[in-house]
């Protein structure tokens, strides 16, 4: 039961940072599978059914640019941050760092009080 609750909260936590992770990774061009592989190798296990619709949504919002490129056997769509995406990423990184600092301070305070 405790594990179920932990899994649910973990999922919500990861969902929140997913956009940040994807935008950060797409500072370099990637196609869908290569992005997923990179995120997996970095320790962020994300399933296909979540990542690919997210990429599409970010592209529709204008945060990503996409381009079809010829690979060995077929064309592949490569995604990369747009100028707007770059600005949003900077804001998100600042926000993330502030949150991290706040949380760190909170955890240290509660650790000392115990």
């Amino acid at each position, binding site marked *: 039961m405790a594990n179920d609750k932990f899994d649910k909260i973990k999922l919500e936590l990861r969902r929140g940072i997913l956009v940040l992770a994807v935008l950060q990774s797409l500072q370099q061009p990637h*196609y*869908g*599978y290569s992005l997923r*592989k990179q995120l997996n190798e970095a320790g962020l296990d994300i399933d*296909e059914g*979540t990542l*690919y*619709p997210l990429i*599409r949504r970010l592209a529709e919002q204008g945060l990503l640019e996409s381009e079809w490129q010829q690979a060995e056997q077929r064309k592949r769509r490569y995604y990369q941050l747009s100028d707007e995406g770059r600005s949003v990423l900077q804001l998100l990184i600042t926000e993330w760092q502030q949150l991290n600092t706040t949380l760190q301070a909170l955890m240290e305070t509660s650790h000392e009080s115990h």
Partner: protein
Amino acid sequence: MNLIDRYIFAVQQYTPAAQQQSVADDLRDHLENEVDALSDGQPTEQEVAGLLRRFGSPEQVAQRYAPRPQPVKPEQMPKYMLVLRYVIAIAFGLTLIKSYFTVIASESFHLSQFISQFIVRFIDLGLFGFAVVTLIFWALNLRPQPQDQWDPQSLPEAGRPWQRISLSDIVSDIAEGIFILLLLWYNVWGPEVLSAYNDSVMIAPALADWRIGLSVLVVVAIAKQIWLLRTPYWTARLLRINLFISAIYVVVFGYLASLSEFIIFGSQATLWLSPDWINQLIRGLLALVAVIYLVKIVRDGRRLWLLRQST
């Protein structure tokens, strides 16, 4: 590869037409890249099936790629379900009345025919009500709802449960008003049944004279209830308005209860109840409404007094 074609084709079925091609292109690109990474690009059918299962069912994937707007927002769902319940109750009541009048206008009565007609009419009217309510909620959701247009200082004092007006009470009063309006103007929406009567059943002229005045009264009461949806708690101003409306109701319904006849039945009408009994029943109902509003006057007068004491 056949499985992938079938999968994309199935996803397109749940995707809006304008986005079908772009979703299919996106999906094919990702799927083919994933397949390339499986067993050096030569996966078995089981491996491809496993990959597709991880992507999700065609319906799920279509919803994630191109979410369809919901006619009713999740936060509106309790209100929507409540309104729907009352609309279905009104449909039931009206169908019952319509079926009863059809029976008394006909020359013979067959229970099976009555039940089958009732079921068909109830489904017909219920579906109509369902469609209207859903359309109204959908139309209201088209307009962005301003969440900050409320004033914390206008909230009622805590600790007075009677000052809160439940959503259920508001909606039931609106439903009651609509039901009364529909009964008053039955000849407008139920002409096919009326023509079948051959003038067997008519509203008495004395009551018919009051129809417009009564309708205005009911419409004002409905408008007040709709206003309550925005501020669902009793304030001094609202209580004064309510007292005024209730006083008019008492006078009007008290007078109507004193009339001698409400419905005139022709000789062709075949009745289960005697005309006198039906008129007595209507008189009793009208008197009951007058008494209920008299009780409401006492209740609201006391509430107004309590509010004045606390300020």
